């Protein structure tokens, strides 16, 4: 046995000599196995195959495909599955065995133009592919972002054991439905996440044959995140964000203060440590923005100051003690003000929530 090899081939290239089993896009010619497509040849123990880099979709039984309803007869729908064959979805598959064209209105289930995800149940050289939607997660796709990629890029987009698509889904908080026929539908609530996912998918399509692609996709998603944050931070007042943080920390502190003063100091310590992280990012952003829109609320500014101090002096114990006092001295009126302010900036606080979510997501990614 020769060692396992991978290499680039074009049609007609001799891949290997000897008695190997031709698996995919390979044909025997004399003693040699030759490639029939442009792609990456892999000669393994079980046989020789060429992973193609171009080509249209040819249906296979059990493939999951996304198709568009293009026509309807009295007993079935015709589905365009991005191939040279139109697929059929029998009405019995949707309505059950007792379907009657006279009684049941097919238009109530699927209309022309609808997008469905289905599985191919039968296809051979003599018949057009037959679909089914009788399975979990199959059926009509109500909404989403529609992308068409080359069907040959689908395995790369999915990645090894779904690694690539999981990366994209997690980083952008979207759900990506991939059909083997090269049609991809991305759904998600966050528009920015959607567009980022689309961008990542297009990148995978364009650079599918290059090495280290997962890393580059990850860097695309990660690199893009901070710029997104900057945008969101610029859009809303940085003070509002800070006040949010301050609100939570002061709320914690004051609650604890109510229960017991001994605990306050401990909790305040931890809360200052917590806040300090937030204060780093928020203070840096607030320093970058020339004039915070909301400056009338002095209490929130005090909070900001204390937080900054807490960060800068977190190392020395006596100063921390002083800050505990500062925090403890924050009265409930301050909190009220903060609440009002955050209510006024409803939209911006929503954005801030999104920002916090994203930060959590980032942390998750790092763990992953």
């Amino acid at each position, binding site marked *: 046995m020769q*060692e*396992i*090899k*991978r*290499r*680039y*081939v*074009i*049609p*007609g*290239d*001799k891949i290997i000599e000897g008695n190997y089993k031709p698996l995919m*896009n390979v*044909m025997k*010619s004399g003693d040699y196995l*030759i490639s*029939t*497509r*442009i792609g990456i040849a*892999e000669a393994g123990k079980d046989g020789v195959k060429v992973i*193609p*880099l*171009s*080509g*249209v979709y*040819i249906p296979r039984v059990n493939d999951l495909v996304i198709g568009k309803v293009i026509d309807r007869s009295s007993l079935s729908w015709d589905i365009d599955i991005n191939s*040279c*064959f*139109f697929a059929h979805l029998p009405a019995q598959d949707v309505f059950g065995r007792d379907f009657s064209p006279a009684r049941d209105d097919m238009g109530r289930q699927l209309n022309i133009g609808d997008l469905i995800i289905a599985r191919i149940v039968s296809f051979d*050289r*003599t018949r057009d592919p037959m679909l089914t939607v009788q399975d979990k997660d199959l059926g009509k796709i109500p909404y989403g972002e529609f992308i068409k990629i080359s069907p*040959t890029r689908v395995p790369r987009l999915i990645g090894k054991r779904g690694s690539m698509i999981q990366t994209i889904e997690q980083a952008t908080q979207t759900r990506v439905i991939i059909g083997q026929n090269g049609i991809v539908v991305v759904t998600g609530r966050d528009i920015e996440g959607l567009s980022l996912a689309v961008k990542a998918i297009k990148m995978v399509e364009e650079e599918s*044959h*290059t090495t280290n692609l997962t890393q580059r996709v990850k860097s695309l998603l990660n690199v893009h995140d901070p710029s997104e944050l900057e945008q969101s931070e610029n859009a809303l007042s940085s003070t509002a964000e800070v006040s949010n943080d301050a609100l939570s920390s002061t709320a914690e502190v004051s609650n604890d203060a109510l229960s017991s003063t001994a605990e306050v100091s401990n909790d305040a310590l931890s809360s200052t440590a917590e806040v300090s992280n937030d204060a780093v990012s928020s203070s840096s952003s607030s320093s970058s923005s020339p004039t915070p829109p909301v400056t009338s609320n002095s209490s929130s500014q005090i909070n900001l100051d204390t937080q900054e101090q807490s960060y800068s002096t977190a190392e020395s114990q006596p100063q921390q003690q002083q800050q505990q006092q500062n925090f403890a001295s924050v009265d409930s009126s301050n909190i009220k003000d903060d609440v009002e302010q955050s209510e006024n900036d409803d939209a911006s606080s929503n954005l801030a929530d999104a920002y916090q979510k994203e930060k959590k997501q980032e942390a998750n990614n790092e763990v992953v």
Partner: protein
Amino acid sequence: MNELTLIDEHGKRSDGRGIDDLRPIKITVGVIKNADGSAFIEFGKNKIIVAVYGPREVHPKHMALPDRCVLRCRYHMSPFSTDTRKNPAPSRREVEISKVIRESLEPSLILSDYPRAVIDVFVEVLQADGGSRCAGIIAASVALADAGINMRDLVSACAAGRLGDNIVLDINDLEDKEGDADMPVAYLPNIEQITLLQLDGKLSTSQFNECLNKAIQGCKLVYEIQKEALMKKYFGNELELKEEVV
């Protein structure tokens, strides 16, 4: 007289080439986004663009074959491709060349893999300078590979001919008109089979053999350029076969 003008005393031809020289060839793959596969070839002064669509559904339906794919080729010369305007309607010559291109490509394709479908090949000559059918075949084969259609081999093509007593490679427009014989050959370089052989003019048996061998040598040279063009499109600058142990 003709011999004197076509080959000088130093063995140089009208455009400065030696008798065994090809015209400069440049192939670009994937120039048409809407097509499934495409290629643009500059073969000397020839400029030809080829687009491949398919496998796709056959229209009209009755043309479909139950056991294999239909290959349709259209060779067309643009009105501006020649010195005097060419009528854009398909001429007898174009219909014939469409047929010979189709027949020269067919053996390279595994058409039985796509029953009831059709593959359309459009060969559009933007500028003609003799040997456009060969250039069309070269580009069409590359475009078919770009479209990801199962193929046994690429098809390369080259003409050889006779100028007086000399057998020369790659006849150009002037040599085609003024020379004594022109023989376009299409060839499968790995399988070593000929898929097109035409001859216009007179050759003795020995001249024929020499001419055929020379044309096949030309095809092998052309094949390297085709291969390089495809590799460049799909694997970037890694023109060498990359081998790695997994």
